[in-house]
């Protein structure tokens, strides 16, 4: 009798569940919304999906900054379509997050009260048209490297959202690179704008992968649970290697005097990343942190009466055909 109690003690049961959960992860099974999962796993996946969704939505602001000023009809159409894609990604990701029991309204509330984050890259301003090229090519390019890896993340709804998102993001990257290419083939003012955008976006794009592995708080557990499949440094290096050739091909200079190809490793070695700047921006002191958040809060508040009207109307169930 006493030994049975011992075997079924809460600690043992929990350990068995954790072991079974880890065994499923190790077998590369996807975890689905109704499956048992450790609380910490749920929190981590939810945090990551929420951050990703908010990033897509906040990212609409710096790009939207150039819709009205897009220089030709084709560019304007492409930019409008691209920003719509980003908003659409926000929608899938909010829905994926909802599978873990937290609705969009609650996620937005956490964004507004500062508990939830979004990618710091969007706290940099878009100052000239080439910045739209740089966002597509470098920022979406960096995001894709991470997201391709996330197509194999262990949480099913997130992995599936990522498959679709990756298809669209690779189009965005080509769109960005096309803008840079056109400007580098253009007049001297256009070339100057393209290089200026490169100089301002290169380092922040590298920072998007997060701190070096040795300094990354969440990496180890996330890797074990296969929420994250590859480390920050591995992903960052992959992005560097593929992007440098693209930059050189169109005549852009990488703003890094220490940049050097390493014959032994067959990778490009870069100079030191300015982590002080990274933490400053993460901590809310980038050029646009305040602006982005105020904008989102203002739009949400301005829309309050619209949402109330829609709800009130739905309640009244007046049908219109």
């Amino acid at each position, binding site marked *: 009798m006493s030994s049975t109690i011992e075997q079924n003690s809460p600690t043992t049961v929990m350990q068995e569940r954790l072991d079974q959960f880890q065994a499923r992860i190790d077998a590369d099974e996807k975890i689905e919304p109704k499956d048992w999962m450790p609380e910490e796993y749920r929190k981590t996946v939810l945090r990551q999906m929420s951050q990703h969704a908010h990033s897509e*939505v906040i990212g*609409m*602001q710096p790009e*939207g900054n150039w*819709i*009205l*000023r*897009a*220089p*030709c*009809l084709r*560019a*304007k*159409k492409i930019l*409008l*379509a691209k*920003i*719509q894609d980003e*908003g*659409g990604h*926000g*929608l899938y990701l*909010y829905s994926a997050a909802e599978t873990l029991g937290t609705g969009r309204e609650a996620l937005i509330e956490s964004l507004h009260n500062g508990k939830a984050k979004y990618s710091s890259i969007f706290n940099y301003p878009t100052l000239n*048209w080439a910045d739209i090229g740089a966002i597509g090519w470098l920022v979406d390019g960096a995001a894709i490297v991470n997201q391709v890896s996330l197509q194999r993340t262990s949480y099913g709804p997130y992995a599936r959202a990522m498959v679709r998102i990756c298809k669209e993001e690779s189009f965005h990257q080509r769109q960005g690179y096309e803008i840079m290419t*056109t400007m580098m*083939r*253009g*007049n001297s*003012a*256009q070339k100057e704008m393209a290089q200026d955008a490169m100089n301002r976006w290169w380092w922040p794009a590298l920072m998007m992968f997060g701190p070096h592995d040795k300094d990354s708080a969440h990496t180890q557990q996330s890797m074990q649970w296969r929420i994250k499949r590859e480390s920050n440094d591995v992903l960052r290096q992959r992005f560097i290697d593929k992007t440098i050739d693209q930059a050189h091909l169109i005549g852009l200079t990488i703003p890094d005097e220490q940049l050097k190809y390493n014959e032994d490793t067959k990778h490009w070695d870069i100079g030191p990343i300015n982590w002080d700047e990274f933490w400053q921006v993460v901590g809310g002191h980038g050029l646009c942190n305040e602006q982005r958040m105020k*904008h*989102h809060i203002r*739009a949400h508040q*301005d*829309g*309050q*009466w*619209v*949402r*109330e*009207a*829609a709800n*009130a*109307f739905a309640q*009244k169930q*007046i049908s*219109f055909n």
Partner: protein
Amino acid sequence: METQQALYQYAVRLGDNSLIMAQRLAEWCSNGPILEEDLALTNAALDYLGEAENYYNYALSLEPDGRTADDLAYLRNERQYYNCLLAEQPNGDYAQTMVKLALFSAYLKLLYDALSQSTDTNLSALASKSLKEVKYHFRHSSEWMIRFGHGTEESKSRAQQAIYELWRFTSDMFETTAADATLKGIVPDPASIQSEWNSVINDLLSRCGLKKPEDPYQVKGGYQAKHTEHLGHILCELQFLQRAYPGAKW
């Protein structure tokens, strides 16, 4: 006026209506009341932008002089745009934008439906294509007007205010120009479109429980390129890069 020249002017006017509406709707990007509406409005902007480009290209095919659709969209001055005054009015709140879009897309829906039967096969093909899009814009915006009319006190009052604000710009859409007169038989008579439009809008307003202003005062001039002050500011943003870097390729 020769038919060719009249067709050119007519197509440019259609293009201008769509271009200026697109530019206004695009202002909603990242400002929508919910993400779905943000996407819906930028999608409508994208539709209008595509329509504008098609009408400009058609106009240029009638009078080929080396200019492109971009030149027409970006390199004219304020007194050379022939869009209706309604299109250039500021977005205001969401009720104002929805009312504006409903009044505007109801007009285009009837116009394109008639134009799709035009003896000018190019115009009829372009109108048929655009018709599918503007039908949806009308459905979307009129459904919101009904929600506002029967939603809350606040939404009803905002929608009513929007109608009062915008009503004076509506007759301008149906002005008859020299081009309309020359193209009689090829394009619909504006007066007949206006009468159909009146019945569509009367029906919509009664479904919403909203009313027209009692004062019938109307301002006109868009099709004569006599605009409100808003257009100049729209063009400042629209044309900035083309004006700042003349001749640059984008």
